[in-house]
C-alpha cells in the first residue's frame, strides 16, 4: 500500500504556477517545464508525421500511382520516417517522461546540469524548423536512414540541410544521455542504492549509454557525407571512388542501437505500469535491470544483420546472425518477468494497464518476427519487403508508442494535476490496439508475398491486403486523435488529481500533483526497495518528512 498523500501542497504553488509568462517557460531550467516543452514539440511532429502516414496509406489503397507523383510519394515516406524517428520516437519517452520523472524518481531537485538540459532543447526545435521548412519545397528527397547516400545526386543541396540538422540534433541526444548518467550517479536520495532504483531509471541509464556511444558515429558519418558533397572526396559515392556499402556500415552502426534508444525506455515504463496495476513487487528485478544493459551492449554488435545481402561475406553474415539471436534472450526475459509479476497480484485494468497489456501483445509479434529476420535463411528472402516494414512498426511504433501513451496516461495526473476521462481513455486504448494490428499485420503477409518496401505502385494482386492496411490506418488515426481531445479537455475540466491516484509506489507519488518547483517539500530518504507493495506495512513511511 502506498503511503497516504503527502502533506498538502495542493492548491499552493507548484512548478506550473510558480512563475508566469512565455519567458519563464522558454528560459526555464526546471526539468519538469522542459519536459512539457518537449511534449508540446514532439506532439506537433507526431501529428505531422501521422498526416504523412495517412497520405501514404491513401496512395497505397490502389495499385496505380494515382494520388501523387512518384517524386512526391518518395518525399512523403522520407519525411514520415525522419519526423517519426528523429523528432518523435527518439525524444518521446526520454525527453518528456524521462526529463520530468527521472530527478523526482531518485529524489533529486533537478538534473545534474539544468542549463545543459535547456540548451539541448534549442537545437532540437531549431532543426525541426529546418527540416519541415525544406519538405514542402520538395528539396528534401534524401533520407539518411534509408541508406542511399549515392542515390540522390540530382539535387545535392537538400542533403546538406538535413545533414546539418541531424548533426546538430545529435548533440541534443548526447547531452541528454550525459545529463541522465551523471544525475543517476551523483544525485540519488539518501538510502536510494542502485538496486532500489525504479526500473524506469535503469532503462534510461542503458539508453543513455547508447546515446553517448552511438551518436558520435552518425555525426562522423554525416561529416564525411558533407565533405564528399562539398569537396568531392571519395568516401561513399562510387563516382568519386567511394564505397556506398561503407555508408551502410557506418549508418547501421548507429542506427541499430538507435532502435534500442526507442524501445528500452518503453520497457522501463512497462515495468512501472505492470507493478503499479498489479500492486506487486516486480518479478526478477535484477534480471530486468541487467537485461536492459545487456541489450545496450550487444546492440552495438549486430548492425551487420541489416546487410546480409549487401555483399558482405557469408562468415560475417553468420556472426551477425548469431549475435542478433542473443538479443532475443534479454527481451524474452523481460516479457516472462512482467507476466510473472501478474501472478498473485491485485490487478486493475485501468487505462495505463490496458496500454501495458497492448505493449506485450504487439511486442511479442514484433520481437518474434525479429528472430525470424535474424535468421539468415529467412532474411535473404524478406529483406527490404513489407515484412520488414511491419516488423519495425510493431517494435518502434506499436511497442514504443504503447509504452509512451501508457506512461503519459499513468503520469498525466502527476504532470498536470488533473484526471482525464477514464471511459474515453479506455476506449482509445482499445481502438489504437485494433487499428494498429489491422494496419500492420496485413503487411507481414504482403512482405512474404514479396511486395518491396518504398513502392509507389505495385502489382494488382497485392491490393486486398493494402486496402485492409489502409482501413486499419484510418482506425488508428482516430485512436490517436482521441487522447488529444480528452487530455486537453482534462486540463480545464478534469477532476483535481490527488498525490497518488493509483495507489502506486515510487517517490514521484509521494509528492503533490503537480509537484512543487523543487520537487519535494522536504528531501526524501529511501528505506526500502522499489515496488515494495506486499511488505509495505513495516516500512510505511517511505519518504516524506524523515
Amino acid at each position: 500500500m502506498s503511503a497516504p498523500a503527502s502533506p498538502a501542497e495542493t492548491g499552493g504553488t507548484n512548478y506550473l504556477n510558480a512563475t508566469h509568462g512565455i519567458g519563464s517557460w522558454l528560459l526555464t531550467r526546471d526539468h519538469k517545464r522542459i519536459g512539457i516543452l518537449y511534449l508540446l514539440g514532439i506532439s506537433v511532429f507526431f501529428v505531422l508525421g501521422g498526416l504523412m502516414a495517412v497520405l501514404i496509406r491513401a496512395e497505397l489503397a490502389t495499385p496505380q500511382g494515382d494520388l501523387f507523383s512518384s517524386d512526391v510519394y518518395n518525399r512523403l515516406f522520407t519525411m514520415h520516417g525522419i519526423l517519426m524517428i528523429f523528432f518523435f520516437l527518439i525524444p518521446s519517452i526520454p525527453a518528456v517522461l524521462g526529463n520530468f520523472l527521472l530527478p523526482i524518481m531518485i529524489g533529486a531537485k533537478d538534473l545534474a546540469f539544468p542549463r545543459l538540459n535547456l540548451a539541448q532543447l534549442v537545437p532540437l526545435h531549431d532543426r525541426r524548423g529546418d527540416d519541415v521548412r525544406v519538405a514542402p519545397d520538395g528539396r528534401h528527397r534524401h533520407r539518411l536512414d534509408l541508406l542511399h547516400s549515392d542515390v540522390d545526386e540530382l539535387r545535392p543541396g537538400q542533403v546538406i540541410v538535413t545533414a546539418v540538422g541531424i548533426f546538430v540534433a545529435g548533440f541534443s541526444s548526447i547531452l541528454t544521455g550525459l545529463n541522465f548518467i551523471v544525475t543517476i550517479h551523483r544525485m540519488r536520495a539518501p538510502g536510494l542504492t542502485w538496486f532500489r532504483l525504479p526500473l524506469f531509471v535503469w532503462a534510461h541509464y542503458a539508453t543513455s549509454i547508447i546515446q553517448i556511444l552511438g551518436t558520435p558515429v552518425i555525426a562522423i558519418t554525416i561529416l564525411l557525407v558533407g565533405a564528399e558533397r562539398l569537396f568531392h572526396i571519395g568516401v561513399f559515392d562510387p563516382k568519386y571512388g567511394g564505397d556506398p556499402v561503407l555508408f551502410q556500415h557506418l549508418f547501421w552502426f548507429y542506427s541499430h542501437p538507435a532502435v534500442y534508444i526507442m524501445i528500452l525506455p518503453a520497457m522501463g515504463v512497462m515495468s512501472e505500469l505492470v507493478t503499479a496495476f498489479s500492486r506487486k513487487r516486480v518479478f526478477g528485478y535484477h534480471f530486468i535491470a541487467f537485461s536492459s544493459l545487456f541489450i545496450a551492449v550487444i546492440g552495438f554488435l549486430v548492425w551487420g544483420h541489416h546487410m546480409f545481402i549487401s555483399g558482405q561475406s557469408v562468415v560475417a553474415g553468420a556472426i551477425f546472425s548469431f549475435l542478433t539471436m542473443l538479443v532475443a534472450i534479454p527481451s524474452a526475459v523481460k516479457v516472462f518477468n512482467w507476466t510473472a509479476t501478474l501472478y498473485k497480484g491485485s490487478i486493475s485494468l485501468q487505462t495505463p494497464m490496458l496500454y501495458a497489456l497492448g505493449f506485450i501483445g504487439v511486442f511479442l509479434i514484433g520481437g518474434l518476427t525479429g528472430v525470424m529476420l535474424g535468421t539468415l535463411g529467412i532474411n535473404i528472402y524478406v529483406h527490404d519487403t513489407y515484412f520488414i516494414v511491419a516488423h519495425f512498426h510493431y517494435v518502434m511504433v506499436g511497442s514504443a508508442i504503447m509504452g509512451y501513451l501508457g506512461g503519459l496516461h499513468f503520469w498525466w495526473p502527476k504532470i498536470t494535476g488533473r484526471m482525464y476521462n477514464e471511459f474515453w481513455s479506455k476506449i482509445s486504448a482499445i481502438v489504437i490496439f485494433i487499428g494498429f494490428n489491422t494496419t500492420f499485420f496485413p503487411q507481414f503477409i504482403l512482405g512474404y508475398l514479396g511486395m518491396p518496401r518504398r513502392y509507389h505502385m505495385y502489382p494488382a494482386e497485392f491490393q486486398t491486403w493494402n486496402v485492409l492496411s489502409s482501413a486499419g490506418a484510418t482506425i488508428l488515426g482516430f485512436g490517436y486523435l482521441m487522447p488529444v481531445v480528452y487530455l486537453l479537455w482534462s486540463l480545464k475540466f478534469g477532476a483535481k488529481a490527488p498525490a497518488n491516484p493509483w495507489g502506486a509506489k515510487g517517490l514521484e507519488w509521494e509528492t503533490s500533483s503537480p509537484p512543487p518547483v523543487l520537487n519535494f517539500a522536504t528531501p526524501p530518504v529511501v528505506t526500502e526497495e522499489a515496488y515494495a507493495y506486499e511488505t509495505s506495512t513495516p516500512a510505511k513511511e517511505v519518504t516524506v518528512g524523515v
Partner: protein
Amino acid sequence: MLPNSPVFPPVSSTLASKVDLLFFFTVGVSVLFSVLIVATIVAFLVKYRRRHAAETGQEIKGNTLILELAWSIIPLGLVMISFFWGAAVFFESSRPPADAWSFHVYGKQWMWKVEHPEGKREINEFHVPVNQAVKLTMTSEDVIHNFSVPAFRLKMDVLPGRYTTAWFKATKTGTYHIFCDQYCGVDHSKMVGKIHVLEPQDYQKWLVGGASAGGAVATGGELFVAKACNTCHRSDSSARAPILDGVFGKSVSLADGRTVLADESYVRESILSPASKIVQGYQPIMPTFKDQISEEEIVQLIRYIQDLKPAGAAAAPAAAAPAAGGKS
C-alpha cells in the same frame, strides 16, 4: 477475399521450399510461445483481478533463480536451432553449383539488363530454362539496386563498382515478378520485370528466335583487339604481360607472394585497376581502363578470356569446368 489475391507466393525454385520450411518452423514456434504467454496473462488477469480498492499483491516466496534460468535457456536453445538452420540455408543459397549456367545482370536507374551465356540480351524480361541451375553475376551502373524474384525466394543487392552473385534453379514453368528491392531513386517502383521459366526445348527455340546478338565471346574478341589488349597479352607478342590463354579459373601467383583465383572479379579489377594485383614476374606497366570501358564491355572481355583455351591443348577437355570451385 477478392479473386486473384494470393496469401502465399508461388514456390518455384529449389531454394523456395527450403526457405518456406524454415519460415513455417519459426512461425510455428512463435505462435506456440505467443499463445502460451497470452493465455497465461489472461488467466492471471481473471484470477488475480482486484477485488477491493485497498488490496495489494501477495509476496512470492522461494527461489526464483531456476525459473529465470529456464526461461533464458529454453528460448536460447530455440533461437540457436533457428540460427543454425538459417545459416545452412544461407550458405547453400550463396554457393552456386558447378554446373550452373552463367548469366550477367546489370541494374541501372530504372531497368534491368540481362545477358545470356550465348550473348543474347534482354531488358526487364528474363527467359530461363526450368530445372537448370543459373548463376547471376551482377553489377550496377549507378546506385545500389537489389535483384529480387519472390517466387524463387531470391534476393541480392546489386552494387556499383563490384560484382555480387546469386543463383537459382527454377522448378516450375511460368512467369514471375522481378522487383528492385533497394530504394534507388524516383522511379524505384518502376524498376520491375518478368522472369519467364520455359521448358528446355522452348528456351532453345526462344534463343534462336529473334535478333541474334552475335555472341559475347565474339564481341569480346573484337574488343580485345580494339582496346589493344592483344599487343601485350598474346603469346605471339613480345609477352610484356601475362598470357591469358587458359588462365581463367586457375590460381595465379602475385608479385607480393599472394595467390589469387582468376575469376570474374579478378579480371574486372585487373582491367580497371591493373596495379592492384601484379602477377609474379611482370612489371606494373598496364594503364587503367577506368572510364574508358562500360560494364557490359568488361563482361564481354571476361567472356572472351574465359573462352581462351590453354595454348597447345585446345582439344583437351580439362578446360570445360568453369570458375566455380565448389565442392559437391
